[in-house]
């Protein structure tokens, strides 16, 4: 069996090691490689895909509930607004900042910021209502510099830049792939007309002929939002490329 033992050094080696330790200390005391960020006075430069405070745009929301669905921490809940639609609210006491809600948002209504230092007075305040998510929280900027960490082959370095980093990310809208809703199994339609009710663009219409209900999807009007796909009780609707 191999035993771990204290390495044996000769006197010369010991002196050499002591001298090296003291020499390193001397060099470091003159040129320290300190990598501390002086936080309130300077901020670390965050990448654009930083997962921070979440902002919300009402116009883009289609009330699809995907954010509330996907949230692993049950932090996102949809709440009814005065106009009858449902919009997300985020409880930051529960939020784990995985940003699944942003990834899953089909309309791009939720978006990230680089704000990571919001202070609350109590737990109740951490439940952020929809109205509060539209505007960013009040920010007091004390920082004059931005800090970047550069990693080269040898070591980690700190680079200070005399500029104030912007905390908001301009999200370029993704290239839209035109989609359209399509019924893949007409025989199984039970004619519940949920899809017609839920469709915002009025692309789905129904007509009764001889006591038989016929559903129709107008491919020109359909925006491909996918609400009907989600709501279809028989799950026979699919989104396909136009």
């Amino acid at each position: 069996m191999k035993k771990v033992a204290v390495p044996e050094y000769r006197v010369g080696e010991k002196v050499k090691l002591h001298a090296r330790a003291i020499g390193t200390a001397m060099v470091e005391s003159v040129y320290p490689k300190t990598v501390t960020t002086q936080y309130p006075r300077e901020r670390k430069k965050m990448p654009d895909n930083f997962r921070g405070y979440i902002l919300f745009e009402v116009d883009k929301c289609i009330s699809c509930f995907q954010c509330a669905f996907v949230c692993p921490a049950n932090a996102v809940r949809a709440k009814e607004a005065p106009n009858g639609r449902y919009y997300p609210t985020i409880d930051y006491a529960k939020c784990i900042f995985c940003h699944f809600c942003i990834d899953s948002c089909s309309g791009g209504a939720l978006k990230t910021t680089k704000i990571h230092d919001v202070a609350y007075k109590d737990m109740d305040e951490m439940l952020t209502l929809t109205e509060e998510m539209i505007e960013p929280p009040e920010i007091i900027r004390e920082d004059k510099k931005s800090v970047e960490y550069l990693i080269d082959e040898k070591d980690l370095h700190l680079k200070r830049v005399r500029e104030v980093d912007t905390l908001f990310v301009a999200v370029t809208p993704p290239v839209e792939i035109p989609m359209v809703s399509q019924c893949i199994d007409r025989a199984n339609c039970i004619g519940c007309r949920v899809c017609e009710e839920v469709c915002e663009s009025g692309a789905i219409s129904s007509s009764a002929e001889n006591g038989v209900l016929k559903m129709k999807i107008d491919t020109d009007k359909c925006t491909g939002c996918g609400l009907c796909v989600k709501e279809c009780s028989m799950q026979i609707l699919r989104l396909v490329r136009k």
Partner: protein
Amino acid sequence: MIDINSIISEMTTEGSQVIIPLIQQMLGLLPDIPMIKLMVSFILWKPIFAALICPGFSTLGILLLFFPWIERKLCARIQWRVGPREVVRWLGGIIQLLADTLKFIFQEVIIHKDAHKFYFLQFPLLTFIPALLPILFVNIASADAEYPLVAIQSPYAIQIMLALICLFPVFILGMGWASNSRYAFIGTVREAFMYFAYEVPFIIAVLAMIILFGTSGSVAITEWQSTWWRWGIICNPFAALAFFIGSAMATSRLPFEIPEADQEVAFGPFVEYSGIGFGLVYIVCYEKMYVLSALMTMLFLGGGNGPYIAPLGDLSGAVWFLLKTIIVMTTLAILRPIYPRYRLDQGLGMGWSAILFLALIALVLSIIMRSVGMVL
């Protein structure tokens, strides 16, 4: 009875006043009021100057105010931290210790139920006796100076300093005993062990130097080391190394921070102290460090010897002395970020084997040099 006239006549004899050409002009401008002249010449009287200004009270106070900051900042830089910063930001937190002192003063002094109240309160104050008295024997004048700048001239200065320094652990043991707490007991026993470990090689190292110099008066030692190749550290480097490691052990610096060890026994003998009591025991360690560094400067680094700075006059030696002392103190402080703490048995083993061996080599070397007459 104190005869004031005899004191005044002694004050005004030649060579008993500190002469600093830089401020001599200013002293001449003083109005011809007898009392002020008397007070100024009293302060500039060499024994009083040495006790009150340099290397005594004022220098010690300023050093104590800033040295902990220097140490913390230095350690922080070596360990890639920032160190104290927020008190006076544009100077890098230089008056951190002043802020700490204010905090200590206004904190409640808690004396717990089991403590021996009488000794618990008086030991932090009594510790200042062995820590302050050795400074009286330190000579800071250079060898070229006609008259020494020392508070008390004695042919046995080194022995007295050593005796007072060796008295120091007794007070720490007293503190630990009066605290009556298990951490304090553990720390106290560790202090006692370390005391035995470092004291013997430490004293032998000093003995080696006394044998080499053939004298133990602080003035004679400075005169002996008048040129740099006759400094103690060059004549007997083994003694210097043994003395240095001994001082690191005596001041509980980090490789031998065994009695205090705040991660294990939470400041050991001082664990029950709070408020100004803790402030005192915190500062008394730095004071001991200053005394030991001054002794090291005197014995090994040539005291106040150095190039003469004309405008400073008698203070020229003092400047060199303080510079060397601060270098020694910084070297002691720089050990803190470099080394981890030894175990108690490792510390004891080191003290009783390697360092004792080193000190004995130094002693033999001194005796050989003295008998062969390689020096002198």
